[in-house]
């Protein structure tokens, strides 16, 4: 028997040259026939369908929550097994499940988290005040229509895409927000700030843009810039003024070449 083992070992060594480092296996998609379940999902999904066994029987089983490392091997010839780790008792995931209960994406956060009555009252007060502020502003805007005959509108087009994208943009008139992109991405489509009545004379129109690289790379989330330009404009009495702003970016991150162009057009 000993001789046979030696012969087999010699044959094995002869078959593989000792100096040649074994060639690594080619990178390929692991097959489900692999002995280890590590690299591929089970070939048949275990998810029960509507035709699964009756829930009554299955539901009656209380789910076990075994401790980690409960089954410790005790073979003598093998290196001694590690003692069962005491750290990190497995969490019950039923509890974790409940943490996502509001995440069905209809509301913004979990219902469990929203149980605080103080915060709910704060939310209600906020909604009420915002409604009142909006109504007050609407009243003033209605009056503005009759008060001033001068009109001001603005457009903005970003031409730096797809290399550079506008993460967020806002337009202010004399410091007050008149347009905000909010959560929506700003594409290369023309952004229109609606025409509004304004007092004739000098005004300050501000454009604030938050630019990020369009190409995804290792550091792309750390690159970009925020640019704010304020333009002094004069709105003539009784006329419509249109401000056309164009933005471009010719740099190659982390080098930037921002370019903003403003054109003013006065119409009757």
């Amino acid at each position, binding site marked *: 028997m000993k001789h046979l083992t030696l012969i087999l070992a010699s044959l094995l060594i002869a078959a593989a040259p000792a100096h040649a480092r074994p060639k690594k296996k080619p990178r390929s998609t692991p097959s489900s026939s692999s002995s280890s379940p590590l690299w591929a999902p089970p070939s048949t999904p275990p998810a*029960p369908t509507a035709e699964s066994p009756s829930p009554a029987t299955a539901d009656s*089983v209380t789910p076990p929550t075994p401790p980690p490392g409960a089954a410790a091997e005790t073979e003598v010839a093998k290196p001694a097994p590690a003692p069962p780790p005491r750290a990190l008792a497995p969490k019950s995931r039923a509890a974790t499940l409940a943490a996502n209960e509001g995440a069905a994406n209809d509301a913004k956060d979990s219902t469990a988290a929203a149980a605080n009555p103080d915060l709910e009252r704060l939310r209600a007060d906020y909604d009420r005040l915002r409604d009142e502020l909006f109504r007050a502003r609407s009243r003033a805007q209605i009056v503005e229509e009759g008060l001033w005959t001068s009109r001001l509108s603005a457009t903005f087009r970003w031409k730096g895409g797809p290399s550079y994208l506008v993460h967020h943009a806002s337009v202010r008139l004399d410091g007050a927000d008149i347009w905000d992109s909010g959560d929506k991405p700003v594409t290369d489509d023309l952004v229109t700030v609606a025409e509004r009545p304004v007092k004739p004379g000098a005004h300050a129109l501000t454009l604030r843009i938050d630019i990020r690289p369009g190409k995804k790379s290792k550091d792309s989330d750390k690159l970009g810039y925020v640019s704010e330009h304020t333009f002094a404009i004069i709105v003539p009495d009784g006329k419509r003024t249109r401000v056309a702003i164009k933005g471009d970016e010719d740099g190659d991150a982390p080098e930037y070449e921002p370019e903003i162009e403003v054109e003013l057009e006065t119409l009757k």
Partner: protein
Amino acid sequence: MIPAALFLLLAQQADAPASASAPAKSDPVSQYLTDLEQSGVLAAPAAAPSLPQLKETLHAAEDDLVTGNPEAATTRLFRVVESPRWSSFSYAPEYEAAEFTIGRALARSGAYDSAKRYLLRVLGHGAKHPYFTAAYRMIVDVALETREQATCLALLEGIKLEDPLPRDSENERAYLRGKVAYEKGDLPGAAAAFGEVDRQSRFHASALYFRGLIAARQQRFAMARRNLCEIVEQADKDRFSFFIDGRYYAIKDLAYLALGRIAHEQGKYDDAYYFYFRVPEDSERLPDALFEAAWSMFQKGEYEAAGAFIEEFDRLFPKSPLGPDVMLLHAMIDLKSCQFEKVRTTLDQLVKTYVPIEAEVAALIKDPSRRAVLYRRLLSRSEIGHPTDRIVELLKIDSRFYRYFSYLVALDREVGQLPENVAVWDEMTAKSTGGSKGADATEAVRLVQEIRELQPMAAGDPEMENRVGLLLHDARRAARPVSTRGGPFADEATQALVLGGDAQRLRARLVAATTAIAEAALVDLDNRLRHMLVQARLTHIDAVIGKKKKLEIEIANLREGRYPAEMFAQLQLEGLMGDDEEYWPFEGEHWSDEYDNYK
């Protein structure tokens, strides 16, 4: 009669019914517009109202709405839906469209109470009218957005209809009923209501998810699985199984995660592995899926698979708040694989990394002034150019923090527009009283300018922003020309200033709320890190004991003439090799470095 005073009177009367279940009978804006036209402030349009003109206005308002100008749309449509001149067109679908569009525009602007008033007007026309279903959906959206689900449900259920509710609206109502019952803790009632949401509803997937959650909470795991599986995979493979929209994919990821958790809870680790594996790489749930999949594999005894998940996690999410948990799990996997040296290295690294952080967190908790700095860093996390902060990265911040912060931003925007509104009213007053005498308040105007210069310096510190805001508010009150403090429109200006004061006070409450949420996250991080460091020490002790035991067994085996497997094989093969040959140790079948794209 003074129009502004009349409006204020009417607005006050109308405020109460706006929040009650019934819509306001008198429309303050309607009376207001009429008064403005009669007093000559607003010029009445020369042309008589016509359907083409209505269509044109509606078209322009819709354009305003889609280009992100809901306020312009609102102003445009107020003059249609609130003017008695247009009331003769109330039969026309275009008029109804105008009512619906103003409801949408108001909701988009955050004026939910006013939006509800117009949407209820649309619903009042009857269930067979073309905008009924859309308005019903919009109210449900407002309910979900404002979380006033019970109030909105009562509003919807209070509508008297001659015709039966359309199927889509029934679905919407059932979903809302389910949500209200769920929040009250009435799980059977919620399950029954969610069960009424049919496949044509936009909430079908959400309702299934909630049914799954309810079943899981009732420990009926097979039922939960069946509901959740219906979201992710249709048994009949029918492409038209149920309605989906952009929300579906997020729900699908959640469903996979929930299925994984249920399988794990039942001890079905292979199933858990399968479900976690199905969470796509672009999902925001992927960190949870990878970490929990690693745990499941660890529990099953598949340490190599668990290690692979952990490595994937490390590669993809090096700055995750789960960082210390992952490191500890890494050590535990090594411990179970008898790689005691690696355990020690990993745990040394863990202690070296997180002990200073834990000390810093503990110091922050004790020192409120330092917490303000952290709060500022937290808010500027998504801004460019801010250095990364390990504590901020580790914090598990409640989503309400960002929600309430968005309220702060919206409130600041609204308050920023108040000076312009006040200027409008002062201009009106000046016009009617023969010009303002601005020189009365030169000193106060200069003070306003100086305080405005302080604003950029206070930016990022919410408490300082509040103080500067209040100061500015007072200075603006003082800076108003004396001549405009009386007169026909002075009350409007005063009301705007009062609202500004209210906004500043609410702002302070919002800052306090967000600070409390951030502090809770900080305390949670402190507890987590403390617990983690204790567990790390215990694991370290386990590793030392394991190593000692391994050596004892090896010594015992050597004493009895048994070599350890790896030494035996090496010695045996080295004995067979020539002098010019080199021993190349067995590397096994597991080429872990080759499987980084195992997905």
